[in-house]
């Protein structure tokens, strides 16, 4: 709702929030997906994470959702908030209307209610894209690490901030249509290792991983990933950069 049109509560009286939560338990064959409403009073500085814990503690102990860090670092509490992917712990209820709809992230395996198995998909993607440093140089564990220019380290760190929450995948139109698509999280990881001077892979090696329609050429630049990334990663520029590099190989 447009904030200006939202009805403001009278001073001193907390808003009464209604959370409509999509409930489903795949482990129970009798479970049918349905929306269940919970009401609670809004508190100052309340996040959706706090609201969900309040509901689980005082209204319904069977409600399933994930969280670890409460600070937008672990990426566990990503869910659809009024239809858009976001982190429950970073979403203040005061920025939303009185009625809030919560659903699990689409695309990922559902564990139950708002809990999805992003970890399984992320691990599979990491293995598929080989997102670790590849080097033929023998490792000397007693030697000092090779120095890196601060600007280079900063650039790598900027991309390493990804928390694998899955918001980019849930916000990606291509991924919704084509399940094999690696998505922004996968492409961002390739961009990160491409920057790393310790990784000896060339663009031709990276082409083997993302040089097809399930990789960088599958991206249609809808940029849901860029706009919904809770860490504000520069996904548009990174994907464009990778596309230029991979397309250049097609000209050889």
């Amino acid at each position: 709702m447009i904030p200006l049109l939202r009805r403001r509560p009278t001073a001193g009286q907390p808003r009464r929030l209604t959370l409509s939560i999509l409930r489903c338990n795949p482990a129970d064959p009798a479970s049918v997906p349905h929306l269940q409403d919970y009401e609670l009073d809004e508190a100052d500085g309340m996040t959706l994470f706090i609201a969900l814990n309040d509901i689980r503690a005082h209204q319904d102990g069977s409600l399933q959702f994930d969280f670890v860090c409460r600070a937008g670092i672990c990426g566990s509490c990503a869910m659809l908030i009024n239809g858009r992917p976001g982190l429950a712990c970073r979403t203040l209820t005061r920025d939303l209307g009185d009625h809030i709809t919560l659903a699990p992230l689409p695309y990922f395996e559902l564990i139950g209610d708002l809990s999805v198995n992003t970890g399984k998909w992320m691990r599979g993607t990491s293995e598929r894209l080989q997102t670790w440093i590849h080097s033929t140089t023998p490792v000397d564990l007693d030697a000092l690490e090779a120095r890196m220019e601060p600007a280079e380290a900063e650039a790598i760190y900027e991309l390493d901030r990804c928390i694998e929450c899955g918001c980019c995948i849930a916000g990606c139109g291509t991924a919704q249509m084509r399940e094999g698509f690696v998505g922004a999280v996968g492409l961002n990881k390739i961009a990160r290792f491409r920057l790393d001077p310790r990784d000896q892979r060339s663009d031709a090696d990276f082409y083997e991983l993302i040089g097809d329609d399930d990789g960088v050429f599958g991206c249609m630049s809808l940029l849901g990933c860029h706009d919904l990334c809770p860490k504000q990663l520069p996904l548009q520029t990174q994907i464009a950069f990778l596309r230029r590099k991979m397309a250049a190989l097609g000209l050889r």
Partner: protein
Amino acid sequence: MTPLNPSPERHDLLAASTAETTPLAVASVASRAKPGKSRWPARLDLLQSLSGLLLALFLMAHMAFVSSILISHDAFYTVARFFEGAYFLGKPYPILVSGVVAGVLALFVGHAWLALRKFPAGFRQYRAFVAHKNRLRHGDTSMWWLQVWTGFALFFMATIHLYQMLMNPSLIGPYESADRVWTGNLWPLYLLLLFAAELHASIGLYRLALKWGWFDASDPNRSRRRLRWVKHGLSAFFITLGLVTLGAYIDLGRAHAEHAGERYVPASQSAPAASGRH
């Protein structure tokens, strides 16, 4: 982070894990020796962008030429004869226009074929995307959907127009075009074609810039906002110009309906020359 002086126990653990992972890493770096992935996905992606860019640029130039009717009938007549080579070959050769149209048609068919790869394939994909778009309420995602539908409409509408120009290249002129628009009942097609083509092209140019990272500022969000304004501006300008131009042809076509089929003769040409053209 690898510790600089790991304990002996930790050292063994790390060494063991390194011994396990190193062959995998080496194998991957050396994997280029094997026959690699096809380069065609890269080429097709480039060709889709290139053909789209060329078609969008052609569309802009086309609108500029067609709208010369707003200056005067003679101006459009001059433009039409220019493309028939009349000013450098001595007399007009409409086959030259057919040649250009054939090139545009080939580009158009190629672009359509390449773009089809991105269309939802089957009901499951269609439904998944529509549900996603409606849920997300995200500008660029919705714009792509508009591009899919305008592209689909262009398959048919642009083909009719291109075929007509391919076969009747000499019938381009103030009266000839106006008669086609009004007496030939093509104005509804041109009206729909105008919106479909201009929206498709402006969204396409915007997405091309984002896709390849053109005009990137230090802040990608700021450059994207600018690109979006340019996109809106292009759409508004060309649709307005197109509507005014189409209006001019409809006006002229209505006024000329009783003499439909009569060729235009510019004021500068003498009467005997004009009669020779009929």
